[in-house]
């Protein structure tokens, strides 16, 4: 991602939707956004971490999210990001993926092939990029891979069969079995997403502080 020439300038950032505006324009899943906002698994320690990140002189100040209301990963994770912003004082702005292809293009995943959402991008007060989180935590990707392998074995399909390659006459059974395996894991995915965002942010802040310290020492 060409961060020095990002299309997300401070002016563009300010044009993004607030969380309230995002909810107001959403035509689906209002109940799910409300549920996941009310039941977000953020702990007091998580909230203290993000508050401390914002309190640093050169710390976190802005959060950008790329989202669409129909997406399950978005309605499971964006309410938590909103809670983080509300509690820490970071400014959250949300951009709809389909209306902002140039922003999405800066945050493609899967070696540039996927427009996975949500994308959550963290910035400093002067709008310098810190880090970003995409779609879901690593443990969730592993769970999906494990579940696909298990369902493939259960249905006696060729090894390596995936969601998109399961034979169409068995795909309904494949997807139903897959969902049954991953649904109990969703709360863990939510927790892992928070942990991953914390870890990414802690590393980014530490790295830049070390660089600043090196400049001072030099």
């Amino acid at each position: 991602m060409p961060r020095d020439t990002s299309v997300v300038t401070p002016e563009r950032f300010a044009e993004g939707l607030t969380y309230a505006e995002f909810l107001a324009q959403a035509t689906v899943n209002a109940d799910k956004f409300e549920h996941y906002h009310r039941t977000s698994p953020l702990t007091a320690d998580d909230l203290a971490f993000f508050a401390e990140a914002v309190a640093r002189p050169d710390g976190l100040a802005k959060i950008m999210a790329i989202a669409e209301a129909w997406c399950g990963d978005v309605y499971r994770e964006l309410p938590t990001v909103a809670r983080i912003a509300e509690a820490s004082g970071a400014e959250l702005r949300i951009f709809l993926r389909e209306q902002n292809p140039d922003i999405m293009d800066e945050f493609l995943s899967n070696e540039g092939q996927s427009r996975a959402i949500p994308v959550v991008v963290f910035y400093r007060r002067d709008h310098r990029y810190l880090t970003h989180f995409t779609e879901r935590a690593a443990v969730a990707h592993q769970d999906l891979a494990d579940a696909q392998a298990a369902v493939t074995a259960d249905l006696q399909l060729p090894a390596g069969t995936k969601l998109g390659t399961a034979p169409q006459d068995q795909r309904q059974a494949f997807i139903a079995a897959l969902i049954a395996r991953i649904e109990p894991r969703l709360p863990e995915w939510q927790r892992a997403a928070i942990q991953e965002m914390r870890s990414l942010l802690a590393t980014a802040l530490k790295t830049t502080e070390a660089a600043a310290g090196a400049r001072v020492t030099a």
Partner: protein
Amino acid sequence: MSVSLPVVYTIRGCDACVKLLDKWQAEGMAFEERRVETSQVLMDEARRYGAMVPIVVWPDGRVEQGFEGHISCFII
């Protein structure tokens, strides 16, 4: 549900949905598209048939999800 045309549940911007619709349009096939992101009624209707768009409900009642390995979108 009684239908005479295949019904396809889609989402704007879904890669697999675009590919499926392109193919059907190139073949001159008649179908009814229902965009699930446009209303909760359509979203709930689609979820009765599956978890991943595109979802095709054929006139004989068969249901198919996804399209030829292209990147689909979960709606749950």
